[in-house]
């Protein structure tokens, strides 16, 4: 291995202006082609008065945006979304990390185990939701039966019909499905950590946790941050499993922002109002994501 280069040389090697734009250009073009039109369209209709019965394109000023503030169901749906996000994400991360540690070193049948563990993530969220709906069924599902065995008495828990049980049900499905995703990414990341560093630390008598925080975590951090970010964004958009399990019910107890938007945009065809919701969502997310990313970037 040659010695590290001087600062001047490095600048030369990685300052190829044409190359760097050339390789990123196709992606930007695709993203713009698909991303720009919906944004412009949404922006325009959100200032109009298009409803199901009337394609009224007269300007409405900020009326639709004003209406957002008094739409209690909207804010509740945003709250529901964040509740699911705030509970599911840490659980998925911690479980995924523990499982990755568990499978990091050699173990008989490791490959088989890892392959099988990925199945939940491989399954379509629509299918996952359907499966758990079947599992949680009071009569035909095994969950209540198992709880009954464990507790000694037959139990009747109406998982998807009672507001107090429906969140655990949805969270179990969500965590079941996406923990393997975290697990696999973390396993890949952990395996990139230089083993000799860890062994050296162990020989020096460093505790497991110390080794983990001082040596392992800094190395896997870029991937961890991205995995968390991507899962957080996916959780913010959560739609499929709720669609399959409760469609937002009972009542509006599990209505998330995506489910609510669907109702407004495709059930009621409140095209203009749905446009305003869309913009609210985009603004809200932009603020959160940019704040989060900048912090991460600074911490780097």
């Amino acid at each position, binding site marked *: 291995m040659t010695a590290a280069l001087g600062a001047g040389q490095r600048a030369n090697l990685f300052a190829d202006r044409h190359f760097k734009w050339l390789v990123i250009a196709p992606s930007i073009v695709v993203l713009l082609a698909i991303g720009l039109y919906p944004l412009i369209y949404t922006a325009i209709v959100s200032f109009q008065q298009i*409803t*199901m*019965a009337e*394609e009224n394109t007269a300007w409405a000023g900020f009326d639709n945006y004003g209406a957002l503030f008094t739409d209690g169901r909207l804010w509740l749906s945003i709250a529901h979304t964040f509740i699911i996000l705030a509970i599911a994400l840490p659980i998925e991360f911690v479980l995924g990390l523990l499982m990755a540690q568990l499978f990091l070193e050699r173990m008989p049948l490791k490959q088989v185990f890892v392959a099988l563990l990925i199945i939940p993530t491989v399954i379509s969220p629509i299918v996952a939701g359907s499966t758990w709906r079947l599992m949680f*069924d*009071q*009569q035909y599902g095994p969950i209540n039966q198992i709880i009954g065995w464990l507790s000694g008495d037959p139990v*009747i828990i*109406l998982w*998807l*019909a*009672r*507001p107090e049980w429906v969140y655990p049900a949805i969270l179990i499905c969500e965590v079941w499905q996406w923990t393997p995703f975290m697990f696999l990414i973390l396993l890949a990341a952990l395996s990139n950590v230089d083993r000799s560093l860890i062994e050296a630390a162990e020989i020096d008598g460093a505790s497991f946790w110390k080794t983990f925080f001082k040596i392992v975590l800094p190395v896997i951090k870029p991937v961890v941050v991205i995995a968390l970010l991507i899962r957080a964004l996916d959780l913010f958009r959560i739609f499929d499993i709720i669609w399959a399990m409760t*469609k937002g*019910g*009972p*009542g*509006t107890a599990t209505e998330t922002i995506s489910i609510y938007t669907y*109702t407004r945009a*495709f*059930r*009621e*065809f409140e*095209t203009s109002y749905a446009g305003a919701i869309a913009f609210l969502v985009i603004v809200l997310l932009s603020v959160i994501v940019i704040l989060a990313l900048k912090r991460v970037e600074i911490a780097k």
Partner: protein
Amino acid sequence: MRKATGIKSLLGALAVTGLFAAIPSASQAESAADIAVEAAKKYAGTELTVIWEAGLQSLDPLNFSGPKWEELTGIKIKVVESQVNEMFPKMMQEHRAKTGAYDILNAVPAWLGDLVRAGALEPLDDYVDKYKYREELEDIGDVYRLNQMKVGDKIYGFPDDGDVLILYYRKDIFEDPKNKEEFKAKHGYDLAAPATWDQFYDISKFLTDKFAPAMYGSGNMRARGLFHYFFLERARVEGCRFFDAESMKATVNGPGCVKAMAGFIKENTTMPPGVEQWGAIESLAAFNAGQIAMTQWWPPVGRWSAGYGADVEALSWVPKSVVAGKVGYALPPGGHPELAAGFSMAVSADSKNKEAAYLFIQWINSKEISLQRVQLPYALRDPFRKSHFSAPSYQALWPDAKHYLAALEAGAKSGVLDLSIINTFAYEDTLSAGLQAALGGEDPQKALDGVAAEWDKLTEKVGVDKQREAYKDWASKPNAYPN
């Protein structure tokens, strides 16, 4: 094929006997189905697209009516299947983009108003006259014809499915002398199909107390998207009005409405545990398995519980019936069954081949073809014509079929309509949400107050005057409210 030969032999007979001129009018002898086929032949080689509910429903156009129509006219029928909840969004979405992707819309009657106001449907009156369909339309059951065909004073859809939620009960249990005796001793009146909801509760509780857990007194659908039908029916039986016709304030939290909701909650205690989650399939399965003595369901349960079509592969998912021959049919308590959902055949305003599209719906909706369709064992189309109820072929399908048809016919006279106003879905959706909350333990009054408040907001958004007009149009239909 059968019809073609029919026409030929008829014409042949006329020619042979030389009575051609003596027949008052040759065209009168021709059925609406034949007229449609003859007129459609000039469109041979084209394709019509129809949007239809996925699953059993669409087996009709896929396996029966589609191929048959193509054979007769040379017009191909392409079926776009869609999950039932997605049909309305799909229709509207294509209409917004003016794609004309669907020529024929198989629409729930309650959607017709919204679809017409959005300009998505073609008025059919001119076609009806041109192709002499008026007379056969008269044969459609009154409730369907008077309520599910027109928006304003124009025809927009042909009622094509006699959906009505009548009561199915176990004759053998109800007629058992010991049960009768015990029941009478306890309640002072005879054990029979309940005429009121109070009786329903008495009977359900009596049977549950006696037979549970092997069998419960009753079990009805409670899941979101289904339960509101039961509420709409019973609330009106209890005197509930959904709106004040003058102020358009929602009155869905009135005493009758609350009483209805409280009744459901009370009856749940006599139903199998977990009934709050039941969808259509749970009550069907439980009834066929003999685990409940009464259920209110769509007409197919009458056929399936009798074992009709049990050997058809498409019905292999239906839980085997152990109650064939033991099922009685009656109107639900109160006597005004909900005409839940149903389907009307309509022509899309964006279709590029409206005439052919119209001819297809006239043909499948006609007396002759519709009778064949409602008898398909796998079909989910239920009898909706007077001639269906009296058809000997149908009455012979199973021993009690005659009684079944009689109950359906009674329902087709006294049934009550689904609510249909501007933006119906939004109202239905907030209602469903409130009802689920009440089933989930919230106080019925409080839950319905919430619904009323939401409805007022929706009405304000739509425009009070506009909605009042739509509501008046709906409420003026003979079966919007009982009496």
